[in-house]
């Protein structure tokens, strides 16, 4: 297919459309309004449904309903709206329902600002909702990846019957880049046929729920969920950039990962040996590669557009093998490659 030049938000919307998404539920919030706006046209045209929900709470619960029917469906929002979706996400995970949820992270806490930020890493990866559950979390670093990972998100959501999060930010959402779209997916009409709700014709009724009251039931349910999450470890994805000979490994994701790449290119020209591991799946987190690099004696620097969140996962991954420094790009400030030069040089040269 020929290249098209689109915004990250639109890439996600088109990705969803091409991946067979046929229901979209959302509530406006900057910086992701292009998504509901695109979907309000695209869904009806594709024979699907667009609902502007009364709130993010409602949107997430509509997603839950669509997921229960085995329909490819999506919702999107940004930070404050994501906080409101947490109860429903916990229910979806607990009821093992598929669905794709997009968060175009903006600055927080509270109303914060509408600029880019990665302040929702903990919420996305550790679970902002209650109880022991996990969502798979995909973090695109380019517009092409935003498109591609949206495809993947739908596949994973159905493969694991679990909500999948796409975690971008105002940069990924607002920037425009050329991308090459894929062939649209023809969704199997029987997808979810073994568990979805459609009326109990000639079979036992199906119950999709998260309540487990009888002795040991909830314990068993939690064990099964953990086993599923363990199975999902194989979906781990990351990008390695110039790590082969690197003395310092930068770990950074999403837009920051991509911007750091510019910095590294520049520093390489000056002979400084920095490399990058850019986690693409934040959950499952690419612990293995970090551990193996740590085993090779590399130093680490985590750079995030927040006050220090993913750095905990980095440290847990390389625990005992290396220390990991942290550089905070403050939420509220726009990141540029220059910002990271000094921190990287410092990390390379110290001690």
């Amino acid at each position, binding site marked *: 297919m020929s*290249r098209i*030049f689109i915004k990250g938000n639109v890439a996600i919307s088109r990705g969803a459309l091409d991946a067979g998404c046929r229901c979209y539920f959302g509530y406006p919030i*900057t*910086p992701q309004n292009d998504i509901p706006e695109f979907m309000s046209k695209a869904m009806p045209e594709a024979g699907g449904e667009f609902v502007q929900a009364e709130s993010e709470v409602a949107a997430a619960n509509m997603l839950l309903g669509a997921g229960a029917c085995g329909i490819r469906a999506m919702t999107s929002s940004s930070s404050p709206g994501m906080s409101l979706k947490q109860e429903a996400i916990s229910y979806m995970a607990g009821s093992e329902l598929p669905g794709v949820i997009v968060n175009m992270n903006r600055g927080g806490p509270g109303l914060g600002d*509408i600029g880019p930020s990665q302040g929702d890493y903990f919420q996305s990866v550790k679970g902002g909702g209650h109880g022991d559950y996990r969502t798979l979390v995909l973090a695109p670093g380019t517009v092409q990846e935003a498109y591609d990972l949206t495809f993947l998100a739908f596949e994973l959501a159905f493969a694991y019957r679990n909500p999948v999060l796409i975690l971008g930010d105002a*940069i990924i959402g*607002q*920037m*425009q*880049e*050329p991308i090459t779209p894929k062939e649209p997916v023809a969704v199997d009409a029987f997808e979810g046929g073994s568990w979805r709700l459609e009326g109990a014709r000639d079979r036992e009724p199906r119950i999709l729920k998260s309540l487990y009251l009888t002795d040991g039931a909830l314990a068993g349910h939690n064990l099964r969920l953990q086993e599923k999450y363990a199975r999902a470890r194989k979906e781990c994805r990351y990008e390695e950039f110039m790590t082969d000979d690197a003395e310092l490994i930068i770990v950074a994701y999403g*837009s920051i990962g*991509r*911007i*750091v*790449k*510019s*910095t590294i*290119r520049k520093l390489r020209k000056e002979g400084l040996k920095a490399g990058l591991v850019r986690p693409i799946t934040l959950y499952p987190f690419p612990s293995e590669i970090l551990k193996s690099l740590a085993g090779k004696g590399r130093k680490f620097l985590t750079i995030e557009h927040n006050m220090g969140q993913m750095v905990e996962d980095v440290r847990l991954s390389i625990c005992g093998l290396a220390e990991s420094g942290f550089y905070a790009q403050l939420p509220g400030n*726009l*990141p*540029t*490659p*220059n*910002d990271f030069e000094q921190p990287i040089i410092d990390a390379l040269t110290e001690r």
Partner: protein
Amino acid sequence: MGVYNDTIIAGFGGQGVMLIGNLLAYAAMESGLNVTYIPVYGPEMRGGTANCTVVISSDDIGSPIIKNPMSLIAMNRPSLDKFQPMVQDQGTVVINSSLVDMELADKDRLKIYGVPANEIADRIGNTRMANMVALGAYTRAIGIIDLEVVQKCLEKVISSHYSHLIPKNAEALAAGAEAVK
């Protein structure tokens, strides 16, 4: 060595800076280059100043955001005030001299092109095409993209509803390019 340029395009909300940023990006894409475009948007999606950044490169583009750009199109005074100091030494700056006092241009440090974009656009038919004049000037000044490609891409950024205005806009682009010869 490949081609690389990054630009901030800035002006009042209504001056169409986003449109020419987009147009430039399309032209770069059509020219087989990598390109990123990113707007800076305020909570006030209305009035105030607006700016966007376009990065063009024959390599992968790391950052779509640039602190010290290689070039600048300043459509009004506040834009020049804000961004001129950030432009790299020997960078290229196109200034809309219809609205900006050229005395303010940092001629010692930068390559300055003053273009009376509003007047030129007015002459062609509509002041609102001042943005095209400026982009034409910029295209010529930077020289990595053909003006014809930019003109060809007008159809991508101007909605079909206004397609009858494309020739005039192409004219404005050309006039701008002419102005920096």
